[in-house]
């Protein structure tokens, strides 16, 4: 009995060690995939002009919820990323059991918009500025640019989540809008988020 017990413990140790190593190895390739995915998003967004907003696949056009504040906004979904061409389903990244290998299962992306005023510092500070996103109704349209000019009332920045006061100032034509990309890791057990990337991606100039 003693021998069997020792043997059982030894085998359990060996296999649990291998299991642990395998689990850890997933993260090496996953990190590379995360890096590429984040960079893909940055390259799609950074330096883009307002004229390029008129595409439903672009990050700006992702469906948002009016009134959402920082931390309560819906993340980009895998479908969003697929639709934007950031990742590819055809190439097997998300086929069945390979989803964990892809490294994106516990990664969420948020895109936020900031109305930029003459004072850039205010726009860079989510507390003093007006963080918010375009509303879902607006995002459902295809031609963002023309929609902006004809239905500007729907394009205002959402209320300040801290004060609850609505910002009635529209995005001024010719003024830039700052776009912010946030990438977070998600703890699957608690569903809590840990910010791993928080980048202002530059401005998109509103149409004159």
């Amino acid at each position, binding site marked *: 009995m003693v021998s069997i017990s020792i*043997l059982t413990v030894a085998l359990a140790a060996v296999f649990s060690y291998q299991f642990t190593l395998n689990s850890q190895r997933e993260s090496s390739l996953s990190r*590379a995939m995360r890096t590429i995915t984040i960079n893909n998003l940055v390259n*799609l967004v950074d*330096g883009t002009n307002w*004229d390029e907003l008129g595409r439903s696949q672009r990050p700006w056009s992702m469906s948002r919820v009016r009134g959402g504040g920082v931390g309560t906004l819906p993340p980009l979904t895998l479908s969003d990323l697929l639709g934007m061409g950031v*990742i*590819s389903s*055809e*190439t*097997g990244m998300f086929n069945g059991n390979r989803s964990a290998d892809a490294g994106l299962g516990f990664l969420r992306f948020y895109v936020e918009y900031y109305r930029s005023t003459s004072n850039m510092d205010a726009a860079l500070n989510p507390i003093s500025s007006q963080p918010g996103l375009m509303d879902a109704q607006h995002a459902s349209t295809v031609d963002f640019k023309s929609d902006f000019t004809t239905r500007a009332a729907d394009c205002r920045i959402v209320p300040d989540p801290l004060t609850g006061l609505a910002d009635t100032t529209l995005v001024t034509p010719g003024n830039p809008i700052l776009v912010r990309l946030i990438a977070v890791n998600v703890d699957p057990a608690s569903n809590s988020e840990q910010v791993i990337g928080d980048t202002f991606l530059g401005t998109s100039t509103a149409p004159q």
Partner: protein
Amino acid sequence: MNSSTHCRSGLSLLEMMIALVLVVILGTSVTLALEGGAGWSGKTSAEDDIADDILRVWRVMNDDLTQSSWWIPDTTQTFGSASLPTDRSLVYAPFVAEPAITGAPTDGQPTSTRMRIFARAQAGDLRFEGPDTSRLNGSGVPGGPGDRLLAPSAFSSTQAYRASYFARSQELVFVRASNQLWNHATDLPNPAQAPSRIQLPVDGYPGTTADWQASANHSRVGALLPSGWQKVGANWTPLSANPYGRVMDACYLYTGSGTLDLKLQLEGTTLPDFQSQDQASVRLYSYALIPSPLAMGVGRLVRAYTTTGTPPPIGSDEGQRIASDGVTSLVIDRVISDNVARVAFETSRHANDLGITNVRATIYFARISEHNRAASVVIRRAVTMVFTMRAANSWQDKATARSTMKTSTVIASGAIPLTY
């Protein structure tokens, strides 16, 4: 002597058998664990190689394409609604080419004199005929060896075409902005002579194109003064006793329409000066897939560029050529990865979800690990990478490129628009 008190000196048969079974179990387990460890080591090593290659490919391409832009040497041509044969005869970059494969259709190959080297249709050119099917086929890798002979439209679906590791690879032909200085060895910078004529020739330049083209001023154009002088009233005044100048790089002086301007200078096969590179001198780069010389290699992804003169020897290492048409050679200048089975590219001419300056690459990585005794293991990953060409990324630059390269719809908007 009482036999009941006799002390036994050995093990019973039953005890021996139990011990033997335990030894066998232990030995088998240790053997399995060692084999598993070796297999795990090989698998993780292959995964590390793939991860390293993913990041390396991204860094190289991102660095290159950040310095790139649309290059349209002849804007009188029709691009937006060009048919496939017409498109293949045009000269522009980025240009997605499909090099020759023995027995495969030629519909993706460029045909112009300037671009034909990327077709690799000459005898002796180095061709990539697809990954080693003896290793990849049957190992769960999507697609099959016959895919390489199919035109994209011959696949059962877009998804099947995009998923296949065996379908024909593409090359991205691109240009890079020059980061070299003008050649001003013979310039005679003497700004005090005519400061108004050698200020930065953009807004507010009071002279004429003829002033710039006068030989006396030509020689000084290498020392522009963007900030060394200021205009006070009608006179130009130096900002200090010794006004400084700055050699302008990565641009050329445009005088074509009588209006002076600075435009993007491209890397060429000759030293840059204040004039633009002519079309024949613009250096074309390419990401090409060639056979890997390594025993475990799947395909070698290299960066190559065009040169003129005596062709170097053919081969798959840096400094060797992979193609030549007798005038131009395509020479490897960087080996990027030996674990690539296929490469595909898209620009805004192929995909509506890309901005005018975006380029998307899909790289099909495959790494063979033979540490597993039973069979080799193929670690694979197909990675989508998006890049932005930033060398000419202003609103006006992009508007010009957009209006020239495409109309309201993407060309080749068929089911599989990857052929051009």
